[in-house]
């Protein structure tokens, strides 16, 4: 990964599209999706936007894409319905906004940001979250507009007795997220998901839980996490990684320590994107795959399989 030395800091946006097994026929479009999201987020930074603006933009793009399990394309709960969770966090104020089990909006990450900025609360759930969305003019969208053929097919498959949703999730797409640091040294994170395939109605995973699905603190860095939600929660994965960074570990070492602990303590696998206030960043995962991309300076970085790190200059078209 890139290590920033010396006094200069380099703004960066890093995104992930879930620590999942991407089907062969979707690999290209998934990589294209994370690259595009990272690029859009970085453009926001270049135009003077904040890290918060950048992570929200990146995640909105992936929510709008049907190829990730967030917003449109979300996996379905056991009843065949979409229930979404999201979080944003501002490293400057430690303020966060979360929504859980929202059904009728296109961009949960935007609603999460509105919770943070327009209410004195940090977390709204279910009907309350929808009620708030209406009150601030967020358009209501139909369940149908969020459900894809793929997610419906996947749901049907998992209805079969003895189907193992956790294992099946490894065949599909997952949670999306982003971290960023802007030119002022402010860090932010955002994470958004449809949750676990065929989850119980009302099931909330790590994504909207501050410290688990994400955490951001200007004094140490920002993390967005993916993987088996319940496992990430049990170790508060994002906060754990930042504790290591507070104690002097690099973004990469801290992320590896967090993932190693997840595996040794709980036998679980996951993935994260992590950034520090100087612009050092990493994308690490203990699964075999995690589509990810980062945009910094003139370079687009990306990968899918473990160990991959491709680079392309922005002047190249893809």
């Amino acid at each position, binding site marked *: 990964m890139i290590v920033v030395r010396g006094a200069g800091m380099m703004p960066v946006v890093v995104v992930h599209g879930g620590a999942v097994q991407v089907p062969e026929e979707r690999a290209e479009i998934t990589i294209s999706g994370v690259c595009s999201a990272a690029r859009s987020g970085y453009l926001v930074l270049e135009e003077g936007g904040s890290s918060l603006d950048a992570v929200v933009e990146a995640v909105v793009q992936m929510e709008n894409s049907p190829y990730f399990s967030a917003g449109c394309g979300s996996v379905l709960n056991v009843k065949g319905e979409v229930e979404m969770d999201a979080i944003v966090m501002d490293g400057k104020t430690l303020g966060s906004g979360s929504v859980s089990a929202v059904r009728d909006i296109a961009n949960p990450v935007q609603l999460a940001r509105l919770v943070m900025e327009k209410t*004195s609360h940090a977390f709204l*759930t279910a009907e309350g979250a929808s009620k708030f969305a209406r009150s601030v003019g967020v358009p209501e969208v139909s369940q149908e507009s969020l459900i894809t053929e793929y997610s419906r097919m996947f749901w049907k498959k998992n209805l079969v007795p003895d189907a193992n949703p956790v294992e099946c999730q490894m065949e599909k797409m997952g949670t999306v997220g982003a971290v960023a640091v802007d030119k002022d040294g402010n860090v932010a994170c955002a994470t958004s998901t449809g949750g676990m395939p065929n989850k119980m109605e009302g*099931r909330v995973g790590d994504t909207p839980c501050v*410290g688990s699905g994400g955490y951001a603190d200007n004094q140490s860095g920002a993390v967005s996490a993916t993987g088996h939600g319940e496992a990430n929660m049990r170790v508060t994965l994002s906060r754990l990684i930042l504790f290591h960074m507070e104690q002097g570990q690099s973004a990469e070492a801290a992320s590896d320590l967090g993932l190693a602990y997840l595996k040794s303590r709980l036998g679980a696998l996951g993935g994260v994107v992590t950034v520090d206030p100087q612009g050092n960043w990493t994308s690490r995962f203990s699964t075999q795959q995690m589509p990810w991309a980062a945009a910094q300076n003139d370079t687009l970085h990306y990968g899918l399989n473990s160990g991959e790190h491709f680079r392309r200059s922005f002047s190249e078209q893809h």
Partner: protein
Amino acid sequence: MSAVLVVHGGAWAIPDELAEASVDGVKTAARKGFVVLRNGGSALDAVEAAVKSLEDNTVFNAGHGATLNIDGEVELDAIIMDGRTLNCGAVSSVKNIANPVSLARAVMEKTSHIMLTGKGANLFAESVGFSTVPTDTLVSEFERKEWERHKTYVTGVLEDFNTQWAHDTVGAVAVDSSGNVACATSTGGIRNKMVGRVGDSPVIGCGAYADNFSGAVSCTGHGESILKVTLAKLILSHVEQGESVADASQLALQYMGERVQGAGGAITVSPSGKWAATFTTQRMAWAAAENDVLWSGLDPNERKKENLN
């Protein structure tokens, strides 16, 4: 290895009129939970018993006596965590359940999930035989009056918290004779909160956390501030760095005050049986049972001692 149980009934400017009932309430809960430990029960059983006692007591803002949201309804949050396995159960925004802590435990033990919210949580409750109680039975006269009073003007969360009449969360932590730790927290949230508002209580690492390698914590206070600093996890990270439970709690609460101007309290227990009840608010009703002694307090630095029996 001697077992310990600590409970709290909320960190806020508890008015004198409620002081005696609050302290009596936490002492009763501590006694109930400690009986479980004395009889060889687990830390998990003990914290559930203690918190149930507090939920059933209308003096506290949890279960019976919970505050009302802006629509005049009761929405409850709770969490329970097992330090041995790091297993956890949580519910947010459940309605018409008398003991949300028990529902949280059912989520932990009867599902492969950790947290259920809203209608889904209520459906699950029904499916495992939890009886629903009418909202009226959860709403105390006091809370109904307070809700009506607040309806006439808009108050920010901080103002509500800092007023004399803001009730608060309940919780318990314990270590049993096998050295296992556990925690539980339960609340009705902030008075006149927005519909569906979730605070720190059911969020793992914030309202509570338990790990046999470091200890168990239950927090109370300004929920949005506790979320910002993941207070429970922050306290235990200090313990992991070698601080005593008292110093760890103090450091973390101080940080919360300085960094985000939030006040609160925490009860903490270590796997070796050390415990602390710490707060940066004016008062916190708390009690701790250890050996044959029942400790309790309300005001800063207050520590009363009596026989457990």
